[in-house]
């Protein structure tokens, strides 16, 4: 068996000259220490993205991006296509899980200061990936064209529309018009299956390449005696695979017992359902906008909140350059506290959305 494999590898090696890659892979080492558990989350993001691409491609086989047929095609997939219920439920559930894991990955690298020199670009490409995947979530959510999708999109684009200066123009560009319509559905489909995948693939490529070139970051001031090194291939891969297997089991159980609902077809003339809100990963921003007073000093409350979010996002993206102490391999407790504050804010606002509905 291994002889056949060796012959195939030799065949490609002679023609593609990939031996240096194999040598690199054999030599690549991964540090193991008390915090190395968090290393797995990047790989899990990649694995879940792979699942999304695979299930997404399969859904495209039966989905129709037209307001007359979108909802019906989802209904069809859920009831008539063999295992359609599974493919679709996996896609919807994994989307949510993936975004959750992205947050875990982001916060774990933040607290471990993995963004510090020389890994600034890894952090920035990661930030872009966060934006891409939030966009994936937002655009994908409209595609089933059910009541929840329609109104969540309306609410979301209204918020985009309230941005100062560019708001109205931005909203029109996103919607493809003045309202959520066929143009919006076509546009979101285009984004979701063509533009975002290409962009995300390219940026993931850069991100992963950087991780390979620079190796895994170790926490600042870690006692080198407590660090062991294991080889990436095959030891770390096996450990990765164990995590991925566990996740697959989890996703399988969730999808069989809690298949994703089809919902009622979107009716633009219906009244907005009570308590409409966007998907959970946007709720911290949504709730902030709901509870902020209408005027803070002389600025409109909503506009202030949006500006603060944008400034916050910019800060978050540029943190590798702002955190001078970490860049000098010094412990940086101030930034840890900032991270805790941000994390707590997001968590509290999200929980508030669901526990206090009459905000």
């Amino acid at each position, binding site marked *: 068996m291994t002889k056949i494999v060796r012959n195939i590898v030799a065949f490609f090696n002679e023609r593609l000259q990939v031996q240096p890659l194999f040598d690199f892979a054999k030599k690549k080492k991964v540090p193991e220490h008390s915090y190395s558990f968090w290393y797995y989350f990047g790989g899990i993001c990649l694995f879940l993205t792979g699942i999304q691409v695979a299930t997404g491609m399969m859904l495209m086989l039966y989905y129709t991006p037209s307001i007359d047929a979108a909802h019906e095609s989802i209904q069809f997939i859920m009831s008539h296509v063999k295992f359609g219920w599974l493919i679709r439920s996996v896609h919807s559930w994994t989307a949510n899980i993936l975004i959750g894991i992205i947050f875990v990955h982001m916060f774990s690298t933040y607290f471990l200061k993995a963004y510090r020199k020389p890994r600034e670009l890894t952090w920035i490409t990661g930030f872009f990936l966060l934006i891409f995947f939030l966009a994936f979530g937002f655009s994908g959510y409209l595609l089933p064209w059910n009541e929840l999708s329609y109104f969540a999109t309306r609410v979301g684009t209204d918020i985009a529309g309230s941005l100062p200066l560019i708001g109205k123009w931005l909203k029109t560009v996103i919607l493809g018009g003045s309202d959520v319509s066929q143009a919006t559905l076509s546009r979101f489909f285009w984004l979701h299956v063509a533009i975002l995948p290409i962009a995300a693939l390219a940026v993931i490529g850069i991100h992963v390449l950087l991780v390979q070139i620079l190796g895994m970051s170790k926490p600042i001031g870690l006692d080198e005696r407590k660090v062991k090194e294991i080889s990436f291939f*095959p030891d770390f891969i096996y450990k990765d695979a164990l995590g991925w297997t566990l996740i697959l089991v989890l996703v*399988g159980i969730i999808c*069989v017992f809690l298949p994703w609902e*089809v919902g009622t077809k979107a009716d633009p003339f219906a009244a907005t359902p009570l308590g409409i809100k966007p998907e959970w990963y946007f709720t911290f921003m949504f709730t902030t906008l709901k509870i902020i007073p209408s005027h803070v000093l002389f600025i409109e409350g909503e506009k202030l909140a949006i500006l603060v979010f944008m400034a916050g996002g910019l800060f978050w993206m540029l943190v590798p350059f702002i955190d001078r102490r970490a860049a000098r391999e010094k412990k940086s407790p101030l930034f840890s506290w900032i991270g805790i504050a941000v994390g707590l804010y997001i968590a509290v606002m999200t929980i508030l959305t669901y526990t206090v509905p009459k905000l």
Partner: protein
Amino acid sequence: MKTRMLGFAVAIGLVLVPPASFAQKNSCLECHKTLEGELKAPAESFAQDVHQQFGLSCRDCHGGNPAEDDADRSMGASFKGVPKRARIPEFCARCHADAAYMRTFNPSLRVDQLSQYGTSKHGRRLKAGDTKAAVCVDCHGAHGIQSAKFPKSPTFPWNIPQTCGRCHADPKLMKDYQIPTNQLEEYKGSVHAQALFEKKDLSAPACNDCHGNHGAVPPEVQSIASVCRQCHPSTGELFSKSPHKKAFDEIGRSECEACHGNHKIVRPTNDMLGTGEKSVCLQCHDAASPGYKVAAAMKDLTDGYEARYQKNLNLLAQAEKKGVEVSEPKYRLQEANTVLISARNLTHGLSLNDLKKTLGEGETTLTEVEKEGVAALDEAKFRRTGLIIATFFLALFGVALFLKIRSMRKPDA
């Protein structure tokens, strides 16, 4: 300087006088608003009154001079004061029965309320000298009168039962008339009340739809059937073609009311058929009569169909709970329910053959739905089995990985 300021003030004054004079003085409201209790209430509630919206005011009904502040002068010669109860219908009809006058405000409003009222029980009793009988203000209010199209109006469809019930459900008030006072209570338990109050279906009948508005009388035996036929014509047609029509005419019993009641008309069930204790057929048919056998047969048919329908309902609910998509068969099951409703309607025609035929069409739908329901449950089972198998393989793989990892950890020499 002073002359200039004076001139300025005069100019301002001249500009303000014309608008000020448009706001007509109404000393009635001004004065009554400062009073208490019963004298204050009309002034307060008049702001909401529909007459006020058409530019009418106190003077147009009560006379008097609203430009005068002095009480005696404002309530002078032309003042009509509070009309006596027995005179109220004529008081309102002074305008509301005048077609030419009403036309200037709302050409579509009827102007025959007074003449209708004269034929009503209320009107006749009032004429006979009974001032306890209902007059216009008892249902419409006196000063905050709103159109019957407004949900807060006491004459809006879903408020009417309460309005009539204010007197008709009061045993003390009704003591002298020897009529029951349980109609409101009975109505509230009816399917019509449920449609009106809970489903907000404004086409559902309230008191006035069967008894009339201004010409309210309890419908006579002959007219009950016509009254019900207003909304239930197909049932009425079936009944008229059935042997029951002649029989009921002969014994002089009201048609629909005999089996369905008049106020507490509840949603009919299969138990009204057949020979059980809730059966209405037994009112006339004894065990020996052919009608008895037909009754029993009809009940068996509808019972059997309903049981099958219920079984399918449960089947689909089960499948849905297990996560299988069953919205299509659920929709088709609704069609089977429509058949049941039309079958129950058909029983009024008393034809077993027609009933069988209609139910037969529904049976086909039920068979299809049952097949899909069973398939859905099978699918649920298939999914769980598949999950167990896949999880088992994954678990095996996980164990294999774990063993591999452990073997890797054993340090090389």
